[in-house]
């Protein structure tokens, strides 16, 4: 094992895959000469040259589409969005083209492309720079959506995403890039669509993914001190969703809180809750609860940011409701 930053793990994944397959290239704003807006692609221009590590103008619609077109013709592009907020400028190419091509062409043209970049809030960046579109992309058949929470998963999942023959949305976080964690030596892959039971427990299950998983973990630690045994599950992929791991867990703990950085209406929590009531109705000892963003755009000011995001306190409160214990 070695210790790597999240950004270094992503960098290794991209470099290894580019060494392995000459059709893989990286394209996006500031990815080459500037070494990446968040230094994820540091050193890659030097290593692979400007043919394969390509700076673009601020033209998301154009370079998303160029990525898709090239993927239809044999390339395996990694398209970086400086953040996924800006993917909205190019979302037409993702939803109408990348996600549809294989189906519309009757299986003739697959689109092996990865769109990656940070998602969600990252400090006080206000309404347009703090959004989570995981559930938007996950809603769309034809796409896969990966949201890693730690360096080891980031590397293994990104390598799988690059090798995947279908379009993959791969969502990171500015606030995780500096996180350090153990990463195995040598080559490894983590399959898409398999959740990770991070911690076993018997009294209640927490489900989360991406950066906000840390909030769920911190809440779990607090509750453990009070004698509550919490099982923590990292979804890792929100399309496809590993429903079986979730259902299995709730059959054991009978209680669940889902922690998600996203607006509440029609998000991943909603989907999980539907599937849980359908497949494990008789196992539930309490309604499933979710802790999500407030149902509002993200404001700039700190008290408003705090009021909007999930927090350890909010998760503990929800857990205690579900456990029917005094707060």
């Amino acid at each position: 094992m070695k210790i790597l930053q999240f950004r270094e793990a992503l960098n290794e994944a991209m470099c290894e895959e580019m060494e392995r397959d000459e059709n893989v290239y990286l394209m996006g704003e500031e990815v080459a000469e500037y070494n990446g807006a968040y230094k994820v692609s540091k050193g890659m221009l030097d290593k692979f040259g400007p043919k394969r590590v390509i700076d673009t103008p601020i033209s998301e619609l154009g370079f998303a589409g160029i990525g898709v077109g090239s993927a239809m013709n044999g390339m395996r592009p990694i398209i970086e969005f400086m953040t996924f907020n800006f993917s909205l400028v190019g979302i037409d190419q993702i939803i109408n083209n990348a996600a549809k091509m294989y189906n519309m062409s009757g299986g003739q043209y697959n689109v092996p492309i990865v769109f990656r970049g940070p998602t969600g809030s990252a400090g006080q960046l206000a309404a347009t720079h703090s959004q989570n579109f995981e559930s938007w992309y996950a809603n769309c058949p034809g796409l896969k959506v990966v949201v890693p929470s730690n360096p080891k998963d980031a590397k293994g999942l990104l390598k799988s995403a690059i090798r995947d023959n279908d379009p993959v949305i791969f969502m990171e976080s500015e606030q995780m890039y500096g996180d350090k964690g153990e990463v195995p030596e040598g080559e490894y892959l983590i399959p898409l669509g398999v959740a990770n039971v991070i911690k076993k427990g018997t009294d209640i299950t927490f489900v989360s993914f991406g950066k906000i998983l840390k909030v769920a973990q911190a809440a779990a630690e607090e509750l453990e001190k009070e004698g509550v045994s919490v099982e923590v599950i990292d979804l890792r992929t929100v399309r496809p969703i590993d429903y079986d791991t979730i259902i299995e867990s709730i059959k054991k703990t009978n209680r669940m809180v889902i922690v998600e950085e996203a607006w509440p209406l029609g998000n991943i929590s909603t989907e999980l809750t539907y599937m849980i009531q359908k497949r494990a109705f008789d196992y539930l000892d309490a309604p499933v609860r979710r802790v999500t963003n407030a149902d509002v755009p993200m404001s700039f000011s700190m008290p408003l940011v705090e009021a909007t995001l999930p927090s350890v306190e909010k998760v503990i409160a929800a857990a205690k409701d579900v456990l029917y214990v005094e707060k």
Partner: protein
Amino acid sequence: MAKKKSLGKETYLHWYESMLLMRKFEEKASQLYIQRKFTGFLHLYIGQEAVVAGSVSATTENDNMITAYRCHAHPLGRGTDPKKVMAELYGKVTGLCKGKGGSMHMFDKERRIFGGHGIVGGQIPLGAGIAFAEKYKGTKNVTLTYMGDGAVRQGALHETFNMAMTWKLPVVFIIENNQYAMGTSVERTSNVTDLYKLGCAYDMPSEPVDGMTCEAVHDAVSRAVDRARKGEGPTLLEMKTYRYKGHSMSDPRKYRTKEEEEAYKKLDPIEKVLKTIKDKKYASAKQIEEINKRVKQQVEEAVKFAEESPLPSPEDIYNDVYSEPNYPFIKE
């Protein structure tokens, strides 16, 4: 209408005081940011002040402005109280947008400032839309739509230029070409590095302008505004300017040289205006000192006001989301 404003003593003194306020305000904001009095992004306009100063003197208070996230100078130039801009940087309820927008989103409806916008290029169609409304209502008001050199590579620009020209919308598109979009120089983004030429494909009157000089900006904007008021449609002005500081506060500026930065600082718009004021004896040394003092005091008062103002309360997140008063938010 359409009469060229004379560039006399008053204009020069106004330019000087206005640009000095923008400069001192942002220098202070930068210090405060480093002291961690507030966080988020902070994009400074330092070096580019002539673009706003010359546009303000060439327009009236009924004309509209919309810009990107580098948006402190535009309201200050239009006379917005610096207290409200500073309080917004601090995220205080007394800020221009009640602490909801922060540095990137300065809106001042009273002064017809239609905002600072964070999605690069997103304001380009909005500016044309604001102009569309003026034309629809039959006013003579013109809309100045600012964008960076990076923003011109967004597809929205082309769609908007085409419609704005076809419909002869009263809009002036102003490129603040400070030569870099983050770490990317204009040359690295296109074969077309004379950005004013982007208007030519639509037969839009288009010209390059010395954006480090108030007089040049004023003249070019005046001509464009006249044309718009006469119903002749949009103009594209490429202001050649320079940002002295980094893109935001965390930019080491490795993509350019110290020599280049120094060369531009020699063209400083504030220094130039000050020199004219001195040469033409528009003000005595004492009067200039008074202006400097007044600006300093305004900035100090703005900081004091921001520091002493209250933060919003958590329940405020549910205000200003819908104009409907009792919207049923999902609260669980």
